[in-house]
């Protein structure tokens, strides 16, 4: 696959056909918890994307070192430590550099430590590094290197943001409906997510780069 086709394949796969929320069900807690207003959903999505990209940049070389030292079993401990430290660091940096940005998304930053989407993206790239091929079959033809891993993290984050923003837009309208008491809150959100997931399923029909 040439480089352009690879980038397209990663874009379509990570953001749409293998969307983190609707197809792989990662990061459901913030997806349910912070999707009540569009502004906060977009802020959370942006924060998650930034953390995902930087976490992949850091954990990728660390994992290479772990493989070289043959101590891969420490990956979970080290990854979660890197993510927790990174989130704290980013919070401090944003607070210092840009207080308005901190006010917009600072409150979501501590929540990201326990967001499974971030750890998932590190695990997926680490697994791809070991096996040499990507886990989602769609981008199996893409070669495995640092640049594509970071790109995968970026597009996965964009897919997550997309899911958050779509859901928050619908939830703002859902508040105006009169629903049975048992259906209010989580149940109706889940069923709405089910319909959006059906729409996202259509993206699996896209074929990039000539090969399946």
């Amino acid at each position, binding site marked *: 696959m040439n480089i352009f086709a690879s980038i397209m394949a990663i874009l379509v796969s990570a953001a749409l056909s293998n969307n983190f929320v*609707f*197809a*792989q*069900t*990662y*990061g*459901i*807690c913030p997806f*349910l918890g912070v999707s009540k207003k569009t502004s906060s959903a977009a802020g959370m999505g942006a924060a998650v994307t930034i953390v995902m990209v930087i976490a992949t940049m850091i954990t990728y070389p660390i994992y290479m070192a772990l493989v070289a030292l043959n101590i891969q*079993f*420490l*990956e*979970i*401990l080290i*990854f*979660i*430590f890197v993510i*927790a430290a990174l989130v704290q660091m980013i919070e401090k940096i944003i607070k210092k550099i840009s207080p308005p940005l901190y006010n917009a998304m600072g409150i979501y930053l501590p929540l990201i*430590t*326990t*967001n*499974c989407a971030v*750890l*998932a993206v590190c*695990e*997926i790239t680490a*697994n791809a590094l070991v096996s040499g091929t990507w*886990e989602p079959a769609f981008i199996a033809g893409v070669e495995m290197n640092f640049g594509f891993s970071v790109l995968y993290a970026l597009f996965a984050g964009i897919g997550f943001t997309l899911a958050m923003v779509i859901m928050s837009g619908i939830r703002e309208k859902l508040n105006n409906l009169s629903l049975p*008491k*048992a*259906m209010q809150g*989580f*149940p*109706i*959100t*889940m*069923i709405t*997510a*089910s*319909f959006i*997931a*059906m729409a996202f*399923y259509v993206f699996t029909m896209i074929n990039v780069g000539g090969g399946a």
Partner: protein
Amino acid sequence: MKNKYGKITLDGLIFNNPTFVLVLGTCPTLAMTSNASDAFGMGISVLVVLTLSNIIISALRRIIPNAVRIPAFIVIIATLVTLLKLFLNKFIPDLYASMGTFLPLIVVNCMILGRAEAYASKNGVLASAVDGIANGIGFTVSLVAMGIIREFIGSGSIFGLQIMDFGISFFAMPMGAFMVYGICIALFVYILESIQRAMRIKKTKRLHGELLNGEELNKEEA
């Protein structure tokens, strides 16, 4: 004392059921319930990690400084998950393969950290262990129930045993997971609220009856 443990157990199993009432640990719930065996494996894994982490954290609760408690909890949970991963890789490779990325993701299951923060860091070892087991069983039962529903409608089998020859593959896919989960929460909440309302009415009637009897007695005495 016995009553206290009964209350912890009931809370974990039903009234504060982590899956259907608190809606915690949703990622594995949605991803691992496409068949009942995987759901059971996931549930038991979380049960073991949750119980052990509750015991360890509650035993260390006076030693861990308050300011760094969250990182300390995460390190304890991550260590337990690493041990679990090595164990499953060695002894149950089928489950290890089907859990894939969701095995390391047990670390960030908000239910485990939630119980550590809300319960184990404030209570004794035995109570925390009971709490861990009760919540773990609540989680496992919910997951297996959803697994059975999705596997039966999705492929006509239960625990891999073919019962009927049909299958709506929608229910085996993530969108089916969202829908089944939503409907399960709604049903659980509805049934729970009906039971609680019935109990409240019964209690009020009894209190009311006692009050009336008391008034009658008072009149007679007067």
